[in-house]
């Protein structure tokens, strides 16, 4: 482009509003503003969650009490879990990038139910306040872990109720977002965009939305039963009253395992958008990625039992859950092959989003393969409830979802803010973060196999070495994080204005609209006559 600053055809959505100041945001039904509201809320909670994580790693720097008591540690890992799972990774990509990009990617002006969309955000904030408030009310922070297992959940004297109700309310927000996206994708695709011309990020959001819709009510009712148990002494899960605590675990994981796919599917979708753009090559196996997405969403329902191999189940059930767990690894493997094949012989543009995407593949593979160790009956008995599990799910949930989130925010940054992030700092931040991440979580695999249990503030002296490395890694990673977030915040305000609406030469629809988009996204709704990644 010749012009340093692009001439705008329509005013940017930032400049158009009937209301002033903060009201322009919190009363807006524009999907882009709602997406940004989610971004800011999620980022704020993420900083709290990350600090709690760092505190835990500092506590584990040496055996015995280092900086906090056992009780405090229990509260910290519980809140870390609740914040990270329910407030960040579950809403994460769908709520931020789904809201901002989904309508643009399918050529629509907004989601199907804009007001419902804003309501979801309010419900999210309400649930978040409940969950965080549980920490500060009298009675002490909840100490059951984010899983709220019975009988802890009804025996503990801490603030269980607000935490459980908070999770329940957050589930509601998730359901409404999912419902909104399903209807949007069914009803609002641009003319000519058949199902098989739809980009992959919307496809993964579609799979995700169905899981949100069909699995979340189960945790809703389970949490309500826990509330009933505490308030009315009903005894659903209390053996003294005839209930069965294992039944709680089943109900909990019937939701919470599919929830892992709520987290990872949109992450896979974001990676599937980034890689073709930075390899300047059509995605390899478009249909295979769609089929594997739907297969993951479907099979993911039937694997929850693998969280309970040591809880007491019949032998047949154990085998079935183990086999199904191995089955769900196949579509994930298919995706990895597709991504690798996409960049093979591509014309690669080494930019920050690409670094995040390839490091995503790397950590996701480690996370996925160690998942098989946990899915196999014999090895699971050995590593169950050890640091191995902690390392595994951080590789998936933080390494997978977190890396994809970072990749996505750098990728769509010029579109969302109309300015470019600072490339050098972004790359430095990524490198430090990546090194810190591996240093933090890799030793945990070793510690787990050596027998260090999770959720204790103390450990035996022989685990000291591994924990020191891991804690140092945490500090390095936080440093990287500080660089990344500072750079993003600074660039959003002072970064260079974009020189082109399509800085990466992307082929999907969001690159055809202005940066930042106008209020209605498109001057004219586009008519689609070719597939999404048309680099031929």
């Amino acid at each position, binding site marked *: 482009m010749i012009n340093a600053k692009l001439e705008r055809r329509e005013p940017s959505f930032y400049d158009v509003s009937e209301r002033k100041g903060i009201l322009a945001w919190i009363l807006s039904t524009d999907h882009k503003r709602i997406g940004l509201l989610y971004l800011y809320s999620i980022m704020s909670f993420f900083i709290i969650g990350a600090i709690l994580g760092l505190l835990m790693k500092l506590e584990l720097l040496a055996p015995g009490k280092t900086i906090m008591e056992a009780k405090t540690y229990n509260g910290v890992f519980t809140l870390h879990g609740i914040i990270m799972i329910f407030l960040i990774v579950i809403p994460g990509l769908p709520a931020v990038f789904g809201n901002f990009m989904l309508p643009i990617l399918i050529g629509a002006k907004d989601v*199907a139910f804009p007001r419902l969309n804003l309501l979801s955000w309010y419900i999210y904030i309400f649930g978040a306040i409940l969950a965080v408030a549980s920490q500060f009310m009298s009675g002490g922070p909840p100490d059951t872990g984010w899983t709220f297992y019975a009988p802890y959940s009804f025996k503990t004297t801490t603030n269980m109720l607000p935490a459980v109700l908070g999770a329940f309310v957050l589930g509601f927000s998730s359901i409404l977002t999912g419902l*909104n996206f399903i209807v949007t994708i069914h009803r609002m695709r641009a003319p000519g965009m058949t199902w098989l011309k739809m980009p992959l990020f919307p496809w993964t959001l579609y799979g995700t939305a169905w899981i949100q819709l069909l699995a979340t009510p189960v945790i809703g009712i*389970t949490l309500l039963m826990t509330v009933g148990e505490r308030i*009315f002494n009903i005894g659903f899960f209390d053996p003294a009253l005839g209930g069965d605590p294992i039944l709680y675990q089943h109900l909990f994981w019937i939701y919470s395992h599919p929830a892992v796919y709520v987290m990872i599917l949109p992450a896979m979708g974001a990676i599937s958008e980034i890689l073709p753009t930075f390899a300047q090559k059509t995605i390899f196996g478009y249909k295979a990625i769609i089929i594997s997405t739907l297969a993951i969403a479907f099979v993911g329902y039937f694997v929850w039992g693998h969280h309970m191999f040591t809880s007491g189940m019949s032998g047949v059930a154990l085998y079935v859950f183990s086999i199904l767990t191995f089955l769900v690894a196949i579509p994930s493997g298919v995706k990895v092959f597709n991504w690798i094949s996409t960049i093979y012989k591509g014309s690669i543009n080494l930019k920050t989003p690409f670094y995040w995407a390839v490091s995503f593949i790397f950590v996701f593979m480690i996370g996925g393969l160690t998942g098989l160790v946990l899915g196999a009956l014999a090895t699971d008995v050995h590593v169950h409830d050890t640091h191995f599990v902690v390392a595994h799910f951080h590789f998936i949930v933080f390494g997978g979802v977190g890396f994809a989130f970072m990749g996505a925010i750098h990728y769509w940054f010029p579109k969302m803010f109309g300015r470019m992030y600072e490339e050098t700092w972004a790359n430095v931040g990524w490198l430090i973060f990546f090194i810190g991440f591996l240093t933090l979580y890799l030793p945990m695999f070793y510690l787990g196999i050596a027998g260090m249990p999770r959720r204790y503030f103390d450990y035996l002296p022989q685990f000291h070495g591994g924990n020191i490395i891991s804690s140092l890694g945490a500090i390095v990673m936080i440093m990287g994080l500080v660089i990344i977030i500072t750079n993003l915040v600074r660039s959003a305000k002072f970064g260079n204005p974009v020189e082109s609406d399509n800085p990466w030469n992307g082929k999907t629809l969001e690159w055809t609209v202005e940066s930042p988009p106008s209020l209605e996204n498109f001057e004219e709704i586009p008519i689609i006559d070719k597939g999404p990644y048309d680099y031929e």
Partner: protein
Amino acid sequence: MTMNNMEEHRDDIGSRFGMWLFIFTELLLFAGLFLVYAVYRFLNRDAFQFAAEELNTFVGALNTVLLLASSATIAMSITALQKNKKVLSLGLLGFTVLVGLVFLVNKYFEWSLKIEHGLFPGSELLLEYGKGEVLFFGLYFFMTGLHALHIIVGLVFILVVFVRIQKGRINSENFVHLENAGLYWHLVDIIWIFLFPLFYLIT
């Protein structure tokens, strides 16, 4: 500017589709409870049958008939509005609300009688009986309670629609919200159709 455009966007099929999806989630919410019911019934068969005899089948049957009738009237109200008979439509909706309220009143008396007899979760009398009875009445209060909560939500939904029909914003050209209220009311009805035999009839 935004708001105007949003209101121009009207998609009745999408709106109905959204309602159906929401109904799925409601069914799954109750599915969790039906699952728990199934497990505990399997484990405590005799106790559940014994406890069920404490419930008043007549009141249960009456409430079933009431809900079925109200489902019929709300369906008729939709047809009436489609045929542009606004007053008839409002009358039928009013009847639906009235019947819903009678259902709640019945429920109230039923519950207070149980509580008077000491049959409620956490009561000492119940704890003397045995674990099966404790679970039965726990599930009874929780499930019918949650159902009653849905009745209240449904009634509020219908009342909102009622006012909007009166104001002419829902009319023979644009009645998808009335249809959605009807769908929700049928959901409440169908859940009761399952609750009734599970608690009252299997003795």
